[in-house]
């Protein structure tokens, strides 16, 4: 186990952090468990790869985000207009997108080895050729800056009147409608925003790892949820800005856990999905475990208190039997 484990975890964590932020928006702010994510991640990845191969890496990132937003809109319309259960609507979109992704990608996987990626022009422009920079360093800087900019923009947005309206819809829908907020519009918009970030993550990953494949969207909901929940376990619930930052941190911690598990040969990479499923289950169960422990402790304390009372009663009884002195109640009666 070396430093490179942490470095890899940090890089991957940042790379996947916008996925976590997108899931935070739908899951925590809008209070909807959105399963579109698996599909929109692959959709963004496919669009990005195809655009990069065609020579437009930056357009690829934009297209990836737009593709994700479109997927979110479809789910949103299924939920609000067709009144389909949100979980089911997500599954429907995700399933449909699997075929769409095949059409877009045109093959089970596409390599970007010979294509220009977003980092390449940057690397050249910064004078990477003279050896002062590594391509990995440029990649890392690009991703970190992008994540910081997106999180800063989002946290500013959620403090505006429009952003406040989105938060209100997730908190109390009836009240939002009473405040003349078009809740259906907000839900569709929120799902589009969340999935745009997911699509962007997929788009970024395709160029980052140099290939896109159809299977990579599978299980992304779990990755996003795990990151959000790990972030909350350590960060708690505070402001939205804090929550968004914790989602990013959670994404890094999640990758760290995975990398450590792989590094100590605890498991092979086939077990990755199982690990993320267990992590999500364990961390989501934590609040219940905590309250069970707390109520167990208070129950024991209450039981002890009760037993002290019973013991005192028993003692008073035996004491009275042995020594029939007037109790305080008797003496008061006598006054």
């Amino acid at each position, binding site marked *: 186990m070396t430093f490179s484990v942490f470095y890899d975890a940090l890089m991957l964590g940042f790379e996947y952090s916008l996925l976590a932020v997108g899931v935070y928006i739908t899951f925590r702010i809008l209070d909807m468990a959105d399963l579109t994510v698996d599909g929109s991640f692959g959709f963004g990845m496919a669009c990005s790869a195809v655009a990069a191969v065609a020579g437009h890496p930056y357009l690829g990132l934009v297209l990836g985000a737009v593709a994700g937003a479109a997927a979110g809109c479809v789910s949103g319309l299924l939920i609000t207009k067709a009144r389909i259960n949100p979980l089911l609507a997500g599954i429907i979109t995700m399933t449909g997108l699997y075929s769409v992704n095949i059409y877009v990608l045109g093959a089970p996987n596409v390599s970007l080895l010979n294509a220009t990626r977003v980092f390449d022009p940057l690397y050249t422009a910064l004078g990477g050729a003279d050896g002062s920079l590594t391509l990995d360093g440029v990649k890392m800087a690009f991703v970190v800056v992008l994540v910081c900019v997106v999180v800063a923009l989002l946290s500013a*947005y959620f*403090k*505006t*009147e*429009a*952003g*406040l*309206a989105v*938060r*209100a819809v997730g*908190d*109390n829908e*009836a*009240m*939002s*409608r*009473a*405040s*003349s*907020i*078009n*809740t259906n519009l907000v839900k569709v918009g929120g799902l589009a925003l969340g999935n745009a970030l997911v699509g962007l993550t997929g788009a970024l990953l395709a160029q980052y790892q140099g290939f896109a494949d159809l299977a990579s969207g599978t299980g992304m909901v779990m990755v996003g949820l795990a990151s959000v929940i790990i972030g909350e376990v350590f960060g708690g619930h505070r402001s939205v800005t804090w929550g968004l930052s914790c989602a990013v941190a959670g994404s890094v911690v999640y990758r760290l856990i995975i990398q450590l598990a792989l590094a100590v040969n605890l498991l092979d990479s086939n077990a990755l999905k199982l690990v993320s499923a267990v992590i999500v289950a364990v961390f989501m169960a934590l609040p219940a475990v905590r309250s069970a422990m707390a109520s167990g402790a208070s129950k024991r304390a209450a039981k002890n208190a009760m037993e002290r009372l019973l013991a005192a009663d028993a003692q008073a009884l035996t004491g009275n039997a042995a020594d029939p002195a007037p109790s305080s109640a008797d003496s008061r009666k006598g006054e």
Partner: protein
Amino acid sequence: MATQANEPQMQAPTQGARVSRQAPMLEVRALEKTFNPGTPTAHKALAGVDLQLAPGEFACIVGSNGAGKSTLFNAIAGAVFPDAGLIKLGGRNVTFDPDYQRSRTLSRVFQDPLMGTAPHLTVAENVSLALGRSTRGASLRRAMRKEKRDLIASRLETLGFGLEDRMDVPVGTLSGGQRQAVTLLMATIGNPELLLLDEHTAALDPAATERILELTDRIVAEQNVATLMITHDLKDALAHGDRTLVMHDGRIVADVWGPERDAMDVDGLLELFRTSAGSELADDKVLLKA
């Protein structure tokens, strides 16, 4: 003492004998709504309701469970669409406008204090949402600007609940009475044309009920907003506002105001209830407390 309002085929809009010189703020005409029509569970919740409310007029509605009071509110607010009839708000026909559009000029406070506020948003953020509602579409300006915070603080101060010092706590941590006070402020801060109070004190303890009703009277008087208040308390129905309506079986069967109302006590209202609604009212499904 009963009015002649209970003829089902009566021509609109001469509801009761009350004719206001002012143009009505709220006009409801021949409103009908049947739930589950054509099935064995069909229930006619509204069977031709006619009602006019002048600007600044404050009317209390009493009636047994299932009389159609809440359905009437739902129809006026746009939560359900009627089968027949007409609803005009401030002279505009709003019968089929969606609820979020109607809520620009219409406010509603529910029985459950949890319904009117968003628990995880702060007091100030909740009031801010209410402030923004009369405008079309939300803006990208900061929600918590200094001048807006000051305005919210000064309005919270008028409630007398000390909430101006707790602007940044989540509403979910407040008591039911405090939440209902915030809801009342949110309902009236945008100067609505109509205020619907749906048993808004029923979930509160007696002391909080007293304070909220007193606050209601003050706000309605200050803002001169047309108000309908559903209550199950006959004493409150006579003590608050300037008009009392009795609903039964989806109709307004009695409408008292002026000297007749001033002279009426709870027994008189019960008697009016019996004479205007018929003998069915005598049975114990009528859950009115005297």
